[in-house]
């Protein structure tokens, strides 16, 4: 694989995992704008560990654990706040994490942090497959059904005995864990971390991938991340105009397909057409 192609593949893999970290809370109706913060926690934890001589797998796992714990710690009090309050609280959390890292001289502060260990695209791809498998498995369980129920009608789900708060906390925590994985993958492929990279824009893009792909099926974020990472790359020759096009795409897509690109209905129609052939 050429250098350019492998770089794109690495970015794509990180984006896909990040999209799933946005998908988990979204799947039960919570908008988490703090994904960059959780990614930063995963990235810096794993980078510090691998720089101290731990194996790559162990450090990535520990990075994911750290962000999962952070996610749990944040979601317990934060989910008392719902809707717009949760969105702002997670946004504030993410900014605090980035600001603290920017002032922490142990991890390079503003001058950045060099990660010694390198991870190539293939093991990254395998990690992404594991994340996909976990999401696929979760959505086939009772927990996945509960998430959909809470998203569609929280009060109704509560009436039928779903522990709404528990589901929400679990979804946000698992999502935070995925964000940690995405951050750790990013750290070990690009070998250099900057606190400024983990900003609101990064969280926003992760959210956009998940929402544009569609929340109805667990494959939506995958489609969203692939389409909206690769399309700007294909349009690279048009330089700045590609972001303008990206903005227009988002607006039109929300207008024409508010449920995202991949909906249950679309899957159903595709199957239906294939059968007579």
């Amino acid at each position, binding site marked *: 694989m050429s250098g350019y192609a492998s770089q794109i593949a690495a970015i794509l893999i990180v984006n896909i995992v990040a999209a799933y970290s946005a998908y988990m809370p979204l799947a039960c109706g919570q908008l988490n704008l703090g994904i960059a913060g959780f990614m930063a926690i995963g990235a810096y934890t794993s980078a510090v560990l691998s720089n101290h001589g731990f194996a790559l797998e162990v450090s990535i796992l520990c990075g994911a654990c750290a962000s999962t714990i952070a996610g749990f710690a944040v979601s317990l009090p934060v989910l*008392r706040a*719902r809707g*717009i309050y949760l969105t702002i609280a997670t946004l*504030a959390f993410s900014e605090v994490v980035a*600001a603290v890292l920017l002032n922490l001289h142990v991890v390079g502060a503003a001058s950045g942090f060099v990660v010694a260990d390198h991870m190539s695209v293939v093991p990254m791809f395998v990690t992404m497959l594991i994340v996909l498998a976990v999401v696929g498995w979760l959505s086939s369980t009772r927990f996945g059904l509960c998430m959909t129920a809470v998203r569609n009608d929280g009060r109704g789900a509560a009436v039928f005995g779903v522990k709404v708060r528990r589901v929400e906390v679990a979804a946000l925590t698992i999502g935070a864990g995925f964000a940690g994985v995405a951050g750790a993958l990013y750290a070990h492929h690009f070998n250099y971390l900057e606190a400024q990279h983990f900003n609101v824009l990064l969280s926003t893009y992760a959210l956009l991938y998940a929402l544009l792909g569609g929340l109805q099926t667990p494959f939506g974020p995958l489609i969203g991340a692939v389409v909206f990472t690769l399309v700007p790359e294909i349009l690279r020759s048009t330089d700045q105009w590609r*972001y*303008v096009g990206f*903005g*227009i795409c988002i607006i039109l897509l929300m207008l024409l397909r*508010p449920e995202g690109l991949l909906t249950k209905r679309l899957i159903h129609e595709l199957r239906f057409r294939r059968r007579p052939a």
Partner: protein
Amino acid sequence: MLAQQVVNGLLLGGIYALVALAFSLTIGILNFLNFSIPALFMLGGVVSCAMLAKGYSIAVSIAIALVVTGAVSLVIERFTFRWLKNVDSHIPLVSSLGFLILFENLVVIYFGSDAVGYPSPFGGASIRLAGVLVSLPQLASFAISLLLIVGCYFVVTRTKLGRGLRSIAESPDISGMLGVDVGRTVSGMYLISGLLAGMGGALFGISYLQVSWDMGSEVALKGISAMVLGGMGNIWGALLGALIIAIVEVLTISYVSSEAVNVIVYGVLLGLILVMPNGLLGDRAVLIERM
């Protein structure tokens, strides 16, 4: 020294208050975090800057900038509210993010990605009041901000439009049934918040003599913090929160370090949401209903 910093903070707070109020209006009435407000703020600054550079007078430049931001805000209303009724509440937020990305990059194309000096006719004129150096453009901006906020208060509490807005905040469906023209009223609200944000951008240019394509994001985050601190949907809360946030920011820069600003400002915001989500002047009953 302390008095000087507090004055600087107060003057900065006027601009934050305009942005906080623009956010607060859309949240208070439609329960929607409008992410296109940073874009409108930036357009206000950049368009008035471009018009000044073309040789128009300051009043004409700001008027043109306000026409542009008002018109853009009405376009955004179509794509985030009018054509998207009865959908999942995340959709308008995503559309408004789309507008933010769209306008920021359009401005990068036409103005470049570097900060541009704002050719203000007033420059950095200043006077000394009781030992405190006060920049005249900043003082004028602060006065204009205060006037706009007071004006906004009267529009919301004393006019037909304001009555419509308050009823929509209770329930859009029922106010529609009772004869409120929901579409026009919400358009009016978008127009007001667009003008507030655009004016904020132009005043920012006049006060700090610099505009850039990404000037909106940082100010918007401070505006959101100010809104939460003051209490969402409360006009005086937006002003109070903005003044506090700005003073804290300026004092942190001068007494701690400029890197510590974000830790403190966003730390306070996070703590507030967790401990007292209704803010200083917020309405507890509204809060419970929304959560």
